[in-house]
């Protein structure tokens, strides 16, 4: 069964604007999650330099022994990444769904200030719904 450990959203300057963890594994306190976010932002930037060919758009997937990290970068530089169990399918689709939810319930919210942490009730509600639906789809396979 698919397990998602946590979801992060970073703005284009590398600051963490959204962090949510699921389950007891991989739980982090605020400071650690901020550090991880800026670490990831720097690694992504370094990957542009490391690439042997031109036109590298960033890191999409990081595979480790105990987890996978899928990352999606929007055209504006906002990065969405999810830490999940190794071998989890359909994470790219999930990231795109989260991106769409962000544009809908965060960016169209007049009370959200750009580059600030996301505190939108509707975004949380819809994110939870999207994940539940996602799990149902994965279970059905």
């Amino acid at each position, binding site marked *: 069964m698919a397990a998602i450990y946590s979801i992060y959203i970073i703005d284009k300057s590398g600051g963490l604007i959204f962090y949510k963890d699921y389950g007891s594994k991989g739980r982090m306190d605020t400071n650690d999650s901020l550090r991880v976010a800026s670490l990831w932002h720097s690694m992504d930037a370094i990957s542009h330099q490391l690439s042997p060919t031109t036109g590298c758009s960033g890191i999409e997937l990081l595979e480790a022994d105990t987890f996978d990290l899928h990352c999606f970068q929007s055209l504006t530089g906002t990065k969405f990444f999810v830490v999940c169990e190794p071998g989890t399918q359909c994470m790219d689709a999930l990231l795109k769904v989260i991106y769409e939810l962000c544009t809908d319930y965060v960016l*169209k*919210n*007049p*009370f959200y200030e750009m580059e600030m942490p996301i505190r*939108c009730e*509707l975004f949380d509600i819809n994110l939870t719904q999207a994940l539940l639906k996602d799990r149902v789809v994965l279970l059905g396979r």
Partner: protein
Amino acid sequence: MIGVGKIKQYSNILDKPLSKGKQEVSLSAFAFLFSELVQYNQTQVDNIAELERRLEDAGYAVGARVLELLCHRDKGNRRETRLLGILSFVHSTVWKVLFGKVADSLEKGTEHEDEYMISEKELLVNKFISIPKDMGTFNCGAFVAGIVRGVLDGAGFPAVVTAHFVPMEGQQRPRTTILIKFAEEVLRREARLG
């Protein structure tokens, strides 16, 4: 919109028939525009009551124009004189044209004779908006309340219209109620008309 192939040219723009226009507008475009309207007004005011009033005023202007347009387009220049008539006009026709569907329900207030309520599970203007906790009972539906007030005022039924959140059991999001409180003269006239 004068379509391609129509030969008749109008010398005076006032003679051109009122077009039906595009039936659909992008929801995202409207949401962004409305979000900017709220943000702009937020910079101009000091408190929440003032912000609600500004949104209502913006809606009032829309309501007045919508009434004129719909009277001409949909009702053949007939005027509503009865209370229930104008309320069902707002509840069905106005809502259909503005939001693409009729309002969820129209109720008469139980406590006061002059109160009526139009309820909606989720107002279209509020679809993407999450009110922060520190704003209390502020509702961007004040814009829609202003539209209703504009329509009623223009039709000769002065009223005080406000938008409220009504928490529902079993639902995460509260439903929205537009509360319409008619002026004395409206009720007197209605009683006289029998």
